[in-house]
């Protein structure tokens, strides 16, 4: 099945969106998950609930509120306008921001679980052996939490690949910038272009499956700790 140019572009946009969002989430999510795993703050549960919201809320709710807040009269949009920055709705950057909110629990929660699973002891041992805080994080926490990182990356990436509701609300369906595969498939079906829908959906399915196999296969080969 050869994809039309536009469909190919949609695929490219989707992969770009998923990759960039996952990277952003790993960068933001790692310190957040670390704090959540270690903190004893009694109001921690409030933060955990906020992060977990996208797990329960329909994506369209998230998209709807994003649309309103990104508008020139909304809090985020207004702020951007004041700073002289370009508006974010209907832009790729806007989609990345939406995806970051939408996929956050899928990245933060596995990381948090992996970090708590390490426990206190290995870090104490490392401290007695002369490792500073940052040293301990890089040489002990990161390697020991590797399965968590893999899960977080895969889940974050996959979740963004399939994103529909949020993109529907704030994407604007601009080919080449904000038209992602899920929207393109939806449009093909609406317009009764079933063979195009098949082509795109099938390609995405095969790609996702191959990606997952590679990731889980690699994780097995370089297992950390007990096999």
């Amino acid at each position: 099945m050869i994809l039309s140019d536009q469909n190919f572009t949609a695929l490219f946009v989707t992969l770009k969106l998923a990759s960039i969002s996952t990277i952003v989430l790993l960068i933001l999510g790692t310190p957040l998950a670390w704090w959540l795993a270690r903190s004893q703050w009694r109001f921690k549960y409030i933060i955990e609930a906020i992060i977990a919201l996208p797990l329960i809320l329909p994506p369209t709710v998230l998209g709807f509120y994003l649309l309103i807040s990104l508008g020139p009269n909304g809090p985020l949009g207004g702020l951007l306008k004041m700073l002289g920055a370009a508006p974010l709705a209907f832009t790729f950057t806007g989609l990345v921001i939406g995806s970051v909110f939408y996929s956050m629990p899928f990245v933060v929660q596995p990381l948090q679980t992996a970090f708590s699973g390490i426990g206190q002891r290995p870090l104490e041992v490392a401290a007695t052996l002369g490792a500073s805080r940052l040293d301990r994080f890089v040489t002990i926490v990161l390697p020991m939490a590797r399965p968590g990182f893999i899960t977080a990356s895969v889940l974050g990436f996959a979740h963004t690949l399939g994103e529909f509701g949020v993109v529907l609300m704030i994407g604007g369906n601009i080919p080449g910038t904000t038209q992602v595969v899920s929207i393109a498939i939806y449009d093909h079906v609406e317009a009764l272009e079933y063979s195009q829908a098949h082509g795109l959906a099938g390609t995405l399915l095969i790609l996702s499956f191959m990606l997952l196999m590679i990731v889980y296969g690699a994780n097995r080969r370089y297992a950390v700790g007990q096999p």
Partner: protein
Amino acid sequence: MASNFAAPIKAITKVFKEKTGHKVILAFGSTGKHYAQITHGAPFDIFLAADKERPLLLERSGLIVDNSRFTYARGSLILWAPERSFESLDAAIRNISSNDFVAIANPKLSPYGLAAKQVLQEVGLWLPLQAKLVRGENIAQTFQFVSTGNANVGFIAGSQLPENLLRQANTFWSLPPSLYSPIDQQAVLLKTSKLKALKVAQEFLTFLKSTEGKKIIQKHGYRFP
């Protein structure tokens, strides 16, 4: 039932009930989805589409009662720029800059979108605006994009103009019908209608075509061929 027809149809069913005592159940959704459901045997009695293509397809497939297809309303296309004010349509169009996001309904899915595309092609803006053309899944979403301010300009349906806007006359302009092919919204009576309901359905469609029915429809911003 096309979602853009929600307001008028609710008013009509209310009057219909008062007059005949019959209750009409409404199901809203996109024309495309309804079409797919009907072709797979969904038990609707009447189908009010947002275009004329789908009713035509249903007729060709033999799924409707003979000669029951007719135009129940004709939509009009409006150019709306809530934050701006110009004397004329020309001025408004000339003012669309490369920084603006322009919202239209997806031309593949909505006759309003198709009409907007035709208008933009006529004024030579279709290709230049490609990167800034925001496509709503339906005319309702298109309206949403403009009303939240994310798109500065948009092509919406005449039936969508909110009451209070009529006071801010210089923010919207009606597009001359000559620039686009007519947006005929057609209705059909489906063969799947059961015998008992069939009679009531026919009564309803008659009411829809009646002067009283048309008055209600017109009040909500539609025209007739």
